[in-house]
Structures are given as structure tokens and as C-alpha cells.
């Protein structure tokens, strides 16, 4: 569990360090961010398929519980 906490802390620190550095991006400056390729998940349909395949072959938590997915008992 040590590593978990450490990583969580690292990420939080990273976020915290980044936040103040963010200059305000005005809505009209968000043209690039609004492009489809900049979507957090540009291919959601494929992502769910891939997550299902990984989930049936790997033991790590996908962070996607509550989405179903069946036994994957093969």
C-alpha cells in the first residue's frame, strides 16, 4: 500500500504544481482544445471494447467498475 499512497501523493502534487501555472484560457482561445482529436477519449466505442478485452486478461483495476462486462471467464 505504501507505493499506492506515494503515487497518489505524487499525482496530487503534480496537479497542485500545475494548477497555479495555468494561465486563464479564454473560451475563444479554446479552438484547439475543442478539436475532436483533443477529446479526452477520441474513440469511446473502441475504448470500451479494448477495456473489456484487457479486463478479461489482466488483474488490474480498470477504474471502470459499475459498467458491467460479465464474467470474462475464458
Amino acid at each position, binding site marked *: 500500500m505504501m507505493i499506492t499512497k506515494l503515487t497518489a501523493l505524487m499525482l496530487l502534487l503534480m496537479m497542485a504544481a500545475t494548477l497555479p501555472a495555468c494561465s486563464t484560457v479564454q473560451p475563444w482561445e479554446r479552438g484547439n482544445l475543442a478539436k475532436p482529436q483533443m477529446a*479526452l477519449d477520441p474513440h469511446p466505442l473502441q475504448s470500451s471494447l479494448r477495456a473489456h478485452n484487457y479486463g478479461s486478461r489482466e488483474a488490474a483495476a480498470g477504474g471502470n467498475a459499475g459498467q458491467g462486462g460479465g464474467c470474462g471467464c475464458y
Partner: protein
Amino acid sequence: MRDKEVVVAVINKNDKVSSLKALTATALSLPGILSPIAHAADGDEVDFQYSHYQEGKRDISVSEVDGSSSGISGTKSFNPIEVDSLHGSARVSLTDRVKFAFNYLQDTWGGATPMATVPYLASGNRAIKNTADALTGASPYAIAGAGLKNLFLGSRSNRLFQTDRVDPNTGLPVFKNDTRLTHVLATASPETRKQGDFKLSYDWDNAAVSVGGGISIEDDYDSRFGNIGGRFDFNQKQTTLNVDLSYTNSYTHATLDHDDYTKKSLLPSRQLTEIVGESGTTIEKTIIHGTRQDWATHFGLTQVVNKDVLLGADFSYTRSTGYQSNPYKGVAIAFVDNNPDSNTYGDLPPGVFPTQIAMFTEQRPDVRNQYAVGGRYVQYINALDAALHFDYRFSADDWGIQAHTFEGDWVQPLGSGWTVTPRIRYYSQDAADFYAPFLISQQRYTLDRLVDPNKLPAHYSSDQRLSGFGTLSGGLTVTKQFAKGLALETGFEYYTHQGGLKLGGGGESAYADFDYWVANAALKVNLSALGNSGAGHASHDGHAGHQHGAHEPAGVMFAHTLPKAGDFMVGYRYMWNSQGGDMLNGTSPVSDQAVVDRGCTETDTLGCFLTPESMSMSMHMLDLMYAPTDWLTLMLMPQFVDMQMGMRGLDGAQSIDIIPNNLGHHITHHIQNPHETGGIGDLGMYALVKLFDNGLHHVHATAGLSAPTGDVDLQIRRAHANDGGYHDYGMQLGSGTWDFKPSLTYTGQVDKFSWGAQANGIVRMEGKNKSGYRLGDMFQGMAWGGYNLTNWLTATVRGVYTVQGSIKGQYNGSSVGQFFNPNNPKEETGFIRVNSQLRFGPQDYPSNYGGRFWDVGFGLSAVVPSGDLAGNRFSVEWLQPVYTDFNGYQLDRDGALSATWGVAF
């Protein structure tokens, strides 16, 4: 799209402040600005996706046990896991702020997968050979002392096997150390999982809440889940926080074969139900069951860093309690005999002790707490108009598994609507604390019920998913966005799992390595975009109603053409067909005895033993239409089918014991486990030619071709060391032949009344398919009438007459006798080659297919009259059998349901 309309209205005020607001609103409404749940609100969309998962062959060792040879050899495994998946989803705005999303998923999978791990020289996989002595398969054969060769344990727990050599000095046998391992593979017949889920969300300007839920059902596992979530935007939407909470309740109820090799005697009694046979002593079947609950919570933060960078962080925690084992996985345990009987083993060198290996069902802990933290970085690359996505995730649990995932995507738009996305992913995990490829226990094995559990660990599993390994995968996604809101997406991924890829080394050895590839294709229809482009089209096209098929019953195919050149239509068609009730011969119900005596007509017949009790088929079809000219409409119809059949024993049938070579035991499996098949069906390609159209009457002819893309060689898994043979003809997914499908259709409409008639047929254009038979030709005639109840709803009634021929030919290799092939010299148990299809019931005989049928259909058709979804058509029809005259002996018909959706643009 509504946001845009609002924007236009605001700008028209010519107010500078409002313009700014409007621009802000536009920017904020664009995709990508919002959080991950935003893609549920990117506009109304309907998507269809098909994917195929194919595992590669694994390295295993097989043994020959025919007495002539005791060789152990390495080979590639046979028939690895395949999965066909279908995913349909719809996202629609119910109001400006209320969105509804729905998903339907269906997987059919089958093939060989590891059930346990044993020492290489103990094998555990028995060779299956054909008459030419060539290796054609392997089946698990892991009975202690029989299938598994004796392993001896030396000092320092060396794994020793006896050689043929004798030490000349001591006169004692020579042993060699062999540390290699092999999987024992077991084959599963195809099984289908179906899942439906939904999400309802409400959006405020700077926040959203959602509630969702769903259910996933397969033969041995049900899962129900619900979730609530919220999204909160801060700081002018530069920061977004997502919070989700979900609950899943899953129930495992796995029926294990009575000849299953894994022993269940160590399982807690609450997980076990044993059904005792009529004799009162033998256990006919064992059910392993258990309930599992998962609570999961997830926090996600997304931050706009600057105009080119997005940053995300996630934290999730999942607590799982209850039954978390895989009921089909076993752990091989080597029981050490510290006081060996020299009559059995002879004199052994000092320090060498014999073991007996037996397999026991795995047992995992009842509680698992998992944590995951992740970060995501998205960078816009100005020079290339591309985006780089980088993700990292760390996950840990109290089973001792820590895992790292790294993933990078490069999303590259190429112009003209093309986008290419290469990606790479690396994953590494430690083994679970209780993972062991196999176990050694310091106790002598006699009976599994006498094993002392105190000399075993509390939990154990040999499941490869809990071992230490790394995986590397890479793939490519290609997307083409067409005008009018249509997009095609296709992807390919290759994945390799290797013990040697584990971070820091120490992964499982190479015997457990495997790989897979997945290919998928998706069609995405953006309804909002269609609505826009089609708005003018719909208004000028006053008679679009009948042209686009609002009035045809849902079950009628090829019922309409597209009105003019350049038109498209996308549709989805679902058909469900059910059989049940009495067995019929011709038009009359018959007794079991009649089926036994006359339903299985074959030379040297022992009669029928079982009969279908229920049968259902679902078909999902995509309806893609395009009119290159005013008079011609082209149509492509891919299909996805799945079938299920339940069987029962026949009263008056002979005892299954008279069936030679233990083959009768297959009957028990047939009755206990419903048969399931599924996957892609045949692909239809059609040309519809308009012959006459005066607005009142319309006639068109259709010429169609059906390509044999559906499987016709699906087989039942082996049991009792014998092949199950082909599934019956009705359970195959396609015809296996190229088929010609002509039809002629007439439709008419006056005022509120509409009507139509159609003649259609199927002509098989080949003598037989690759499995040796062909389905009968078919002719169908029908007429229907419709009445508009309102301007958007039509009621229909239809009469249908169908003639379907019986099957010609039969499965390859099933020409002589009901069970035997006397030309086959090899009849020893373990090598017995029987008919390719074991014929136990009427469904196994080609003459028991086809017939003459009358049906009456009642339907409703609706078209959305206005709003964003204007022009979308839905129809549903129930087809009720009124007259059935079967060829031979068949199960009565219950009826058929058709439902369709379509939109033209």
C-alpha cells in the same frame, strides 16, 4: 445542435456583450472541452460496432495413451479462443438538458483455454488423432494416476521424472530433473453474453448529474449494476471534477460436467450443489455458485493547462466481496507420498519420493480492495494539427497485485474526414500472493475427500491472469467522416502477453505466453447532423412517408426504394424467432414414442434419444441503402446472429448405455446444458430496381446475393474423451452457400390507407457447402394492408405463405450408421472416430427441416413527425403462425418478432 441555434439567435440581437457570450457558449459546447462524460452529450448519435477477438495458439505438451507409445511431445494448441462481439448504442437528447444513452452488447465466445498448469512431462493433454495418425487436437486428461504421469520429488523439491535408464552402480532407476510446465487446455462450446445498460443525465450550465444501470446475462453468470455520477465545472470550465459511485451484484452458477476433472471436495459447502442421479449414488452434475458484490468509486479531475494542453488525474477505489473465483479453473496439486510402497514404485534412490497429481477447483479470497491512480496528458501539436495522448495508471490491491499501465496515442487528422490513430500500450503486473502454477502438498493422496486442507494454503489459483507478466500491444484506428453525419471507424490491435515482459523481471515462464489480435469496424450515425442536412429534404418531399417505408410491416424486407439519386438510408433490423411446445410430424402433434421410432431415420438406427424442447434465434441486421440513380437503390445488409436450443430426453427411448464407446454420455450433456451459437451471419447484397411509380402505385424488383460469411462448421466440445461433433444444422450461423435472393414488390397508398404485396425466394447456387450439405430453397408470398391511425402512427396486418425445402446432403463424414463409421479401423477408446455429427435426435437429420407455413402479422409503424429526430422511423411486428406443415419431425413454432429503426437522409 440546439446550442448553435441559440447562438444564432443571440448574435442576431447585434449586442456586443451577447456576441461574446455567444462565442463563449459555442466554445463551451464544442466537444472536448467537457469532461469524459461529455461524449454522452456530443449530439444525438447511433453507433454499431462489430469486433472479432482471436487468440493465438499456445505451446502445450500432449501425451499419447493408446498403449503403443507413451510419448510426450510439444505441440501448438488447437482451436484457441475466439470472440465475436456486437455493440449497438444510442444517445439522444430527450430535452435540451436531459440526455439518454443506451448500450446493447453481445459477445459469443468459444474455444480452448487453460484450466490448470502441470509439469510438462506429466502432460495432462491427451492427443487426438485422425485415421491417418495425424494429430488433430488435444483434450484434458488429468485423472490422478491415469492421465497424469507420475512426478517424483527430489531433494530441494526438484521435479523429477523417471527415465528408462538404470544406474549400473546401484541398480536403481535414474531420474532427471525437468522444471518445465504446460497448461492443460479445456475447450468450451460457444456461449453468448448479452448486456443492456443505460445512462440518464441532466445538464446544468456548469454541472451535470447522471444515473445509470444495466444487466449482463450469460448462461453461468448474471450481473446487475447501477451507478450515479456528477460533473462540476469550475473556473470558467477550465477545471472539471467528476465523481462516480457504482454498485455491481454478480451471481455465478456454473454447471460442471460430471466428468469434469477438477475436484470440488475442498470447496465450502455453501458454494456447491451436487445433483445426484436416479441411482442415488452417482453425482450427475455439480453446480458451483456464489454471489459477489462490488462497490466502486471514482474521482476524476480535468484541467485546461493552456490553449494546447489538457491534464487529467483519476483516483478509484473498488471493494469486492463474495465469490471471486473462476469456477472452471483448477489448481494441480502434487501430493507427496513420503512412505512409498515398493510394490508400486519399486526401489527408489534415497530422497526421491513419488507424488500423485490431482486437480482441485481454485479458491480465491472473499475480499479484495483495489486502488488505482492515473494521470492523463493531452497535447495539441500545432504543426501537424495532431494530438498526443499519454496515460499512466498505477493499480494495487490487497491480493498483492501491483500493476502499471502506460499508453500513448497519436491522433492525426489527414484531411477529407480521415483520421489515423496509432497507439501503443504497455502493462505489467505482479503475481497475486496466492498464485502458484501448481502446488506441492506433503500428504499422501488416496481419495480427494480425504485430503487434509490444513496442509494446503487457504487460497490458491493458477489462473494466468493472477500471475506475474507484462503485455505489449499496439494498434491502429482509422476513421473516415462522411458528409451528412456518417462516420466509419475501423481498428486493429495486436497484443502479446509474456512473463518476460514483466517490469523488474520474475514473471511466469514462457509456457504461459500467448497473444491475440482484435479487429473491429463501426458505423456511427450522427442524428443531429442528419437532421440538419435532411431538413429541407423532408419538407419538400411530401410523400416521403411511403417512399421511406413508414407503412410496411417491420418483418418485410426490401419493401421500399430510396426516392432519388444521392439518398442514403441507415437502418437497424432485429428479428427474434422462437420454437417450443409439441413435436409435430407434418401438421399433427406426435408422442415421444413416435419420435423415438420414426424421427431418426438411418440404417442401423437405435432411434431418437432426445428432442428439442425450445429454440430461439436472434438476428441483428444493419440496413445500409444508397441510391446512385433515381431508379436504382443498392443495399448492404451485414448480420449478426445468435441461437439457443434446449433439449430433453424422450420417453420410451432406449437406454443410453446401449450406445457404444460411452458416446451416450454426450446425451446427458445435451440435456443439461443448452446449446448456444452465435457470430456473424451471411452478408446480403441487393440491388433494388424501380419499375413503376406514379405516386399511387409503386413496383420494384430486387436481385440479391447472399455471401456465405456465417459459420457452418460449429462443433460441440468434447466430453468423455470423445468429440461432440457438429451442432445440428439449425444451429449453424449461415447457409454456407452463395445464395440468389430475388423478389418483386408492389406497394400502393391512398389517403390513410396503404397496401402491398411481395413474392421473394432464396435459391442456393451451390450443390453443397464446405460442411457437405445445402439448405433447402425457399419461396415466400405475402400481402399486407396499413391504416394511418394518426399522422405519425400506422397499424398493419399481413398474411404470409412460406415453402421451405428440406436440407440436401449431410455433414461430411456422417454417411454410414447413426454412430459408427465402420470404415474407420481405429475404435479404441480415446481414438474413436465417430460420425462427424453424433445423431441423437430429429434435429440431426436433414429430412427434418423445412415445410409449408401460413403466418399472420400484426404491426405498428411510427415516424417521428418533428424535432431533432424528425424522420426517424420505428416499426414492430409480431408474426403469429396459423398453419404449420413440417417436413418430418420438428418442434412447433411460437412466432417471430421484428423490430426496425431507420432514418433516410
